[in-house]
């Protein structure tokens, strides 16, 4: 295998063209393919649900004639292919139809409620990164080479427990402790800075513990690498060793995991928003599923899916800037 690797490395060197560009091109292709899958799934959602969308739109008490009129109005009488192409047209022009319940364009609902969701997710991710990387690195440094077994046992068990707590339970417990018991912070809603504290913590808690564990384990892996031995042979301070030689090598795996975590946290906002009555898309999607408001469900799922895909793309682009090897390995 060793020689095959050499051959492949040579192959990479001999290839014409910029490997970064080729990697980006490939990555963009994946993004577009995933988007197509996403749009198709969102379209099929309405086709596959049990029950009649026209009936759902017209209302339980509507006459059969009214339901048929609605069906024609929504274009549901057309062949599937035509409906599919129309859906694409709608996606590309931002016209995703009207909500069955409020009769307003769903795109308006998206634009008014999405900022609250994005704000929550991005704030939480910032908290995760700011806490997890230094804490994980510090514990990794403290417990390297089987040092401080007591600290290690304490860290692993506490972080395991915290990582298991799902965001909705964290939310409930936080509400109970800080809003019901001591009433320091608001129970729900999105108003002043204080109202952000509990939702952001609820969303960030589990991922922070998970990422801290990963950063610590990665720190140990990096510390065992030959190049760390080389760096140590240059007789530098521990601070410089960790900052200059360990940290950059942690970033690749940390960023990859962060991308996945951020995707999961976008989904997690659904739960957190429902606890804190946060005026984002998460509280809307549940009510629209239960109210069979399919255009709205479709639009929100499209939004969440596209947001997650975009995040993955951005993380991958950051990755090749931070660590050019990823691009070469993947190309």
């Amino acid at each position: 295998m060793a020689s095959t690797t050499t051959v492949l490395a040579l192959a990479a060197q001999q290839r014409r063209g910029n490997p970064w560009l080729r990697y980006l091109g490939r990555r963009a292709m994946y993004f577009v393919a995933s988007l197509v899958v996403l749009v198709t799934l969102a379209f099929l959602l309405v086709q596959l649900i049990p029950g009649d969308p026209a009936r759902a739109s017209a209302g339980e008490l509507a006459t059969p004639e009214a339901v048929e009129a609605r069906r024609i109005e929504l274009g549901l009488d057309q062949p599937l292919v035509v409906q599919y192409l129309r859906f694409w047209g709608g996606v590309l022009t931002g016209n995703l139809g009207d909500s069955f319940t409020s009769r307003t364009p769903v795109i308006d609902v998206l634009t008014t409620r999405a900022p609250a969701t994005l704000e929550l997710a991005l704030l939480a991710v910032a908290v995760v990164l700011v806490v997890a990387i230094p804490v994980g690195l510090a514990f990794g440094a403290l417990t390297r080479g089987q040092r401080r077994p007591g600290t290690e046992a304490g860290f692993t068990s506490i972080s395991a427990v915290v990582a298991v707590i799902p965001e909705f339970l964290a939310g409930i417990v936080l509400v109970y402790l800080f809003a019901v018991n001591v009433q320091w912070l608001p129970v729900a809603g999105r108003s002043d800075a204080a109202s952000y504290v509990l939702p952001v913590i609820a969303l960030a808690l589990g991922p922070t513990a998970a990422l801290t564990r990963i950063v610590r384990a990665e720190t140990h892996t990096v510390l065992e690498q030959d190049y760390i031995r080389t760096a140590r042979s240059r007789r530098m301070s521990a601070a410089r060793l960790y900052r200059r030689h360990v940290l950059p090598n942690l970033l690749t795996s940390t960023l990859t995991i962060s991308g996945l975590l951020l995707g999961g946290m976008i989904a997690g906002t659904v739960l957190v928003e429902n606890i804190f009555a946060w005026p984002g898309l998460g509280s809307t999607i549940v009510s629209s599923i239960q109210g069979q408001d399919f255009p709205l469900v479709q639009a929100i799922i499209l939004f969440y899916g596209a947001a997650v895909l975009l995040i993955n793309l951005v993380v991958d682009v950051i990755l090749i800037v931070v660590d050019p090897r990823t691009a070469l390995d993947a190309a």
Partner: protein
Amino acid sequence: MSMPLTFETVTITFGHGSSTFAAVRGVDLTVQPGEMLGLVGESGSGKSTLARAAVGLQEPSAGRILLGDTVISRARGAAARERRRVQMIFQDPQSCFDPRRTIGQSIDEALVQAARREGVAAAGARARRAEAGELLQAVALPAAMADRMPTELSGGQRQRVAVARAIAARPSVVLADEITSALDVSVQGAVLNLLRDLQRELGFSVLFISHNLAVVRVVCDRVAVMRHGALVEVGDTLQVLEQPSQAYTSELIAAVPTL
């Protein structure tokens, strides 16, 4: 038993379109029946890739590979069965045995496949076990070692078992890919002597891939030199190593440190 293994203008490429890279370029080479042919060259010269193509682990993009008169490249069905007469011994003794199976089970797999290739019913489990034991003794290991797991053996012992597995398949040609480069020099001789003795006894031919010219000089009848995927020269070992016709070969020889 032995048949010539012929590479006819074999080219092997990796990648597609503008990023194509030829690891092997138009190589013509024949391993004669019963000979030990050395294949030398530096890393990336394409020698391992060429060998992997002969056993079907890589598809040549141009040219063909024959065993006797049968085309065994891109082979399906009967030709693919015929290709199993070409066996390979790998470089890394850590990775060449399934860590979940005993040494005996690994040899047994080769025996079963050999019977299947020859179109005969495989011998019973007991008979195959006895045969595996004999094969282990043939490589100077106790038959009882069949029940051991690969991790319980030393690197040198594992390479000897790798030789046993290869001959269990009743090969016409054995491709030995750097089989001693991961071993200490003190056990290298034992493995190579075994391979040579078994070759003389069973009559198969060997394509002996190595970067160590001194070893090739001792064990090989003929030697072929590769560079950047192309064949530089082929000839009688002493001829090539003492009066090389190509500048690159002289360069390689000059670089070998001497005692």
